[in-house]
């Protein structure tokens, strides 16, 4: 939101034409759903969906010190990146709390693209600018971002690009190629638990790309399905499941925290927490029946407080009521039987290993 008004992506008119139900999210007016969350969810699990996620903030980090800056800013290690490789990483404050979670794409040693959450745009920008010597450019409204997700994504994209995507591994990207005749960067990344791509292209040239994708059979999907898909895939949502007071170790993101031989903002606090242990841990929950746990629902074990739900939904593909919850560490082990209080009614649940679903890994169903 800028000057109290919701921002719109260049595809706003397309969303209205598709009769999307629009919703305010992170300062943007975005499609919540078109045909329906369940149908859109299914499209992504079985074929291919497209999402306008241009509301995500995008920053260029440029200059000879770009890598050095990021090495001091990120919990994950940017020095592991090759040109054309992407990294998921927490951005931490001195206390180890998460300022945001980011996807960082290395174009070259002196040029990186950072993608963050829409609602954190101003915070991220201020944080990056105050802690980096490099040039930090807000490219949020210069680059449209489309997610093309689902098992048929590669086949959908094939006729629209000149490069061969079949050999592109996950977390790799093709910089500055073209899609449907429009300059585009194509990254094999996503937030759905499926194979898929994220496509960056110039802000004012999005319509032909969107139209070509739709004509190729991709189903328009909104933020509603994006949320149910990410939850089944066990991905957290910043602002909902974690915030500035959550460390990546508490968020179940230990795998993204590279402490060995490194010093970055928050590393001392995180090193300390590795020694002393976490105060709580984000875990997966599966509830009995079809009652859905919502954010804030208390989690109990043998009648005593064990945590609280941070996100909950019906898992349309695994067909189970699932949730993420912040748990006391002694109750966070998979297999722990707990109770979730939904509308003052106790619903039996179990702590489970994440993800609930990933292509080829249907743990829960």
């Amino acid at each position, binding site marked *: 939101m800028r000057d109290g008004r919701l921002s719109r992506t260049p595809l706003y008119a397309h969303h209205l034409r598709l009769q999307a139900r629009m919703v305010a999210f992170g300062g943007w007016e975005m499609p*919540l*759903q078109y045909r*329906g*969350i*369940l149908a859109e969810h299914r499209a992504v699990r079985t074929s291919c969906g497209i999402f306008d996620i241009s509301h995500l903030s995008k920053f260029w980090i440029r200059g000879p010190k770009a890598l050095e800056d990021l090495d001091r800013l990120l919990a994950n290690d940017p020095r592991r990146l090759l040109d054309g490789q992407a990294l998921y990483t927490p951005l931490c404050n001195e206390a180890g709390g998460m300022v945001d979670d980011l996807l960082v794409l290395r174009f070259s040693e002196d040029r990186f693209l950072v993608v963050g959450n829409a609602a954190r745009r101003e915070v991220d920008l201020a944080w990056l600018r105050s802690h980096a010597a490099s040039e930090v450019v807000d490219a949020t409204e210069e680059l449209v971002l489309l997610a093309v997700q689902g098992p048929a994504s590669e086949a959908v994209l094939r006729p629209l690009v000149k490069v061969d995507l079949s050999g592109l591994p996950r977390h790799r990207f093709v910089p500055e190629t073209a899609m449907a005749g429009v300059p585009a960067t194509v990254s094999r990344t996503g937030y759905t638990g499926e194979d898929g791509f994220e496509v960056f292209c110039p802000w004012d040239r999005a319509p032909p790309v969107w139209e070509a994708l739709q004509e190729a059979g991709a189903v328009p999907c909104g933020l*509603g399905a994006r949320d*149910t898909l990410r939850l089944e895939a066990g991905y957290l949502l910043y602002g909902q499941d974690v915030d500035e007071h959550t460390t990546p170790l508490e968020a179940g993101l230990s795998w993204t925290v590279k402490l060995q031989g490194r010093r970055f903002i928050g590393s001392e606090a995180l090193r300390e927490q590795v020694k002393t242990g976490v105060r709580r841990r984000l875990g997966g929950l599966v509830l009995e029946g*079809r*009652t*859905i746990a*919502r954010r804030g629902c208390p989690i109990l074990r043998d009648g005593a407080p064990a945590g609280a739900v941070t996100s909950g*939904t*019906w898992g*349309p593909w695994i067909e189970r*009521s699932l949730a993420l919850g912040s748990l006391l560490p002694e109750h966070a082990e998979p297999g722990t039987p707990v109770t979730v209080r939904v*509308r003052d009614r106790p619903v039996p649940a179990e702590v489970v290993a994440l993800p609930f679903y990933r292509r080829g890994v249907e743990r829960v169903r």
Partner: protein
Amino acid sequence: MNAEVGVVPEDLRYTTEHEWVRLEGNWARVGITKFAADRLSDVVYVELPEVGREVRFLEPFGVIESVKAASDLYAPLTGRVVEVNERLRSEPELVTQDPYGEGWMILIEPTDPSELDRLLDAAAYRRHIGEG
């Protein structure tokens, strides 16, 4: 073509909370309106009372859950539940597909049928949802 024709059947009474009620002899059948069902769209669970339970005029008798939110269901009449739509346990989508038919929720034996006069008729409900 007016796609909204038939969306608010003439023979029903309505609550401002979007439940409908239809008298069937001594019993009253209850569901939610197409207007409400369209707005919920992705119904995944309907929590209904046990048969035999008393429900009270304009008080919650159950909950309908869509993917995004839970909403209370309000009883249009005071009475005893004599039947619940068991199909909704496994097919909650019936609420969206056929809100005035297969998607009904409970059957009540009303104790005070005069409460019916305090509900909206079709014209008033249409005005309530801005389609009158």
